[in-house]
């Protein structure tokens, strides 16, 4: 392992006059809430993967589980999507984001605001989040969905989610304000931005689409803006923060293009919301919105290229190149997934291509690559890095971790490739008006069959992670119990 070249923080006074604490104290101050968040996030990931697998079976055997009214495709699909976004990804982002921010700012939570029951408050907020996700999912199951894509939770559930986020997110911003370290890192900008944007985005979208809906003629752009923003401006920045902060340290190198990273940050801010308009190219919106979607989709390659150049262009030594640690492998795969997302997005935004591929498996595959690849893979990296440090010991089963990694990466790339290829095929057939719709459905059958296999891989991967983390946390709990800590 390469020698650590970073300044060590011991209990001495820095130039700002605050007492900088060491990492253990920081970890101790956030241990319980983050473990609660990560543990529940993985639990929802398993449920979401199981539901996604059932959905993929329904595309090849529509009458699978057909007798039960609340297990139709239309009820399960929003459940799976919302569980992936709010149950797994957002929670892992909350957990990872708080941990990264606390470590990067060099302060335990208890030293802010006079140590007001921070841990208890965070745990309560985490529980509230999970209650909201659980009840919201059950509400969709029982037939109370709002019908707005990605915002299907009933109003009371989304309000609970919003409140819970505020209670957690405020700490990240406060930590940044009261940090003991000097110059802000790239990762910290992304974290501040992410924690500020989510309430604004989530609150606005819910207010205008579900709480007090505006006239439906205006809802299309707002809903598309929400979809783009939730991915590009809440989840992706946390993933990028993980990539920019953890990857250099794990590989024993440092970012050497901070100015480029600055450009990338502001461009992501600018383009992120507009990027969602690729869902409405050619839709019932004024022409300039369609064109804005096209331009944003193509220009999104710039922030993506910047991340690629920054990360892959870091000067590395021989040891770091040989790094086989699971967290860094996940983070690097996340970077490559982001490249895939950028390329797919740029191509699918061009009007001539969008004409054929919109509404097909290409857009679905792009969304899956976004959520499962560009966002989840870096979050897995943070998970694997954070839990041992929070528990204070090496707790992962190496074999399970390696299997999780392989199955996840293979599963994601298999799923996305099949969806994109199938979507291209379907899209070209849809563009020929003489081909009947039912024929197209039957042509898509082999692709749906292979998607089933890919979803099974992802389900097994999620179960492996679930087993691994349960083992890690349970043995920690038993260990602490036995030693009376």
């Amino acid at each position, binding site marked *: *392992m390469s020698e*650590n070249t*970073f*300044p*060590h*923080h011991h209990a001495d006074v820095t130039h700002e006059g605050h007492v900088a604490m060491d*990492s253990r104290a920081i970890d101790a101050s956030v241990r319980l809430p983050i473990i609660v968040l990560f543990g529940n996030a993985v639990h929802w990931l398993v449920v979401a993967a199981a539901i996604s697998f059932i959905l993929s079976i329904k595309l090849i055997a529509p009458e699978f589980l057909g007798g039960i009214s609340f297990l139709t495709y239309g009820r399960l699909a929003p459940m799976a999507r919302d569980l992936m976004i709010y149950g797994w990804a957002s929670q892992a982002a909350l957990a990872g984001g708080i941990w990264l921010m606390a*470590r*990067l*700012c*060099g302060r335990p939570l208890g030293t802010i605001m006079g140590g007001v029951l921070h841990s208890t408050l965070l745990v309560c907020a985490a529980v509230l989040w999970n209650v909201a996700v659980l009840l919201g999912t059950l509400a969709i199951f029982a037939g109370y969905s709002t019908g707005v894509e990605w915002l299907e939770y009933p109003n009371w559930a989304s309000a609970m989610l919003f409140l819970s986020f505020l209670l957690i997110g405020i700490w990240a911003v406060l930590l940044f304000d009261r*940090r*003991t*370290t*000097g*110059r*802000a*890192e*790239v990762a910290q900008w992304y974290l501040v931005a992410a924690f500020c944007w989510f309430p604004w985005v989530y609150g606005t979208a819910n207010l205008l689409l579900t709480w007090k809906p505006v006239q439906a003629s205006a809802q299309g752009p707002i809903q598309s803006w929400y979809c783009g923003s939730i991915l590009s401006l809440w989840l992706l920045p946390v993933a990028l923060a993980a990539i920019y*902060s*953890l990857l*250099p*340290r*794990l590989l024993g190198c*440092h*970012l*050497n*293009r*901070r*100015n*480029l*990273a600055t*450009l990338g940050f502001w461009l992501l801010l600018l383009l992120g919301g507009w990027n969602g308009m690729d869902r409405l190219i050619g839709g019932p*919106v*004024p*022409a*300039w919105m*369609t*064109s*804005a979607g*096209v*331009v944003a989709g*193509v*220009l999104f*390659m*710039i922030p993506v290229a910047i991340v690629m*150049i920054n990360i892959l262009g870091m000067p590395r030594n021989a040891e770091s190149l040989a790094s*086989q*640690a*699971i967290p860094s492998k996940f983070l690097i795969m996340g970077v490559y997934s982001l490249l895939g997302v950028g390329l797919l997005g740029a191509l699918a935004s061009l*009007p001539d291509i969008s004409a054929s591929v919109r509404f097909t498996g290409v857009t679905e595959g792009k969304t899956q690559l976004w959520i499962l690849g560009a966002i989840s893979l870096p979050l897995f990296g943070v998970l694997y*890095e954070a839990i*041992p*440090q929070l528990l204070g*010991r*090496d707790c992962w089963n*190496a074999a399970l971790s390696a299997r999780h990694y392989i199955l996840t990466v293979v599963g994601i790339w298999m799923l996305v490739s099949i969806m994109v290829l199938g979507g291209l095929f379907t899209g070209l057939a849809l563009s020929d*008006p*003489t081909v*009947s719709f039912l024929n197209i459905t039957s042509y898509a059958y082999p692709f749906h069959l292979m998607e089933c296999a890919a979803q099974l891989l992802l389900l097994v991967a999620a179960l492996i992670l679930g087993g691994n983390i349960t083992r890690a946390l349970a043995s920690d709990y038993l260990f602490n119990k036995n030693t009376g800590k």
Partner: protein
Amino acid sequence: MNHDHQNNKFEGGGEGTETNRPLSPWLVGSFMLALCWGGFYLAFNSGGFRQDVYETNVVNWAGGGAQAAAPVDPKVIGKRLYTQNCVVCHQSTGLGVAGQFPPLVGSEWVNSDSKHGDNHLVMLMLNGLQGSMQVLGGSYNNAMPQWKQLTDDQIAAILTYIRSDWGNKGDAIDPAFVATIRKEQAAQNEAWTQAQLMAMAPVKQPAAASAATATK
């Protein structure tokens, strides 16, 4: 090899951990180029940023009413409908089946001549035909079903298509003409016979009305 977590000091302290390298001019240049492309694209594909312009291929900076987009080619719609409804008998080549289903290629019924008018063709589509029929010197004795359940637009599209493919060179059929014939022959419930049709004088459809048959 397991990563030794105990000794990994992931900490803050940005001093000296992130440095600046001069940006490559090629990189900056290509980014600027991309942004310029974006600007030009937006300028020329936004319909003047008007709220009532939905088509991106209209550059409308001068104001004024919304421009109508190019009309959809009826032959494409007609071909689809023909494929769905007519190929069973008349085949995708338009040649029909010898002795059973009459051909459409070069047919005097389709292309209209001195004895066969546009009205005969439309009436044939609306109510169908039974009994024996002469087409291009051949005799056919079969039953063509009625198609009055299709709309005027759809019938006009199919007829326009069959008049324009396989070497046929007939005029497009106007949906308004179909509507007129439908109204005139509303009392007819059964399929026509050839004799009944030929007893009616051949009528050419009125000169095509201007393209703006729709409201503004």
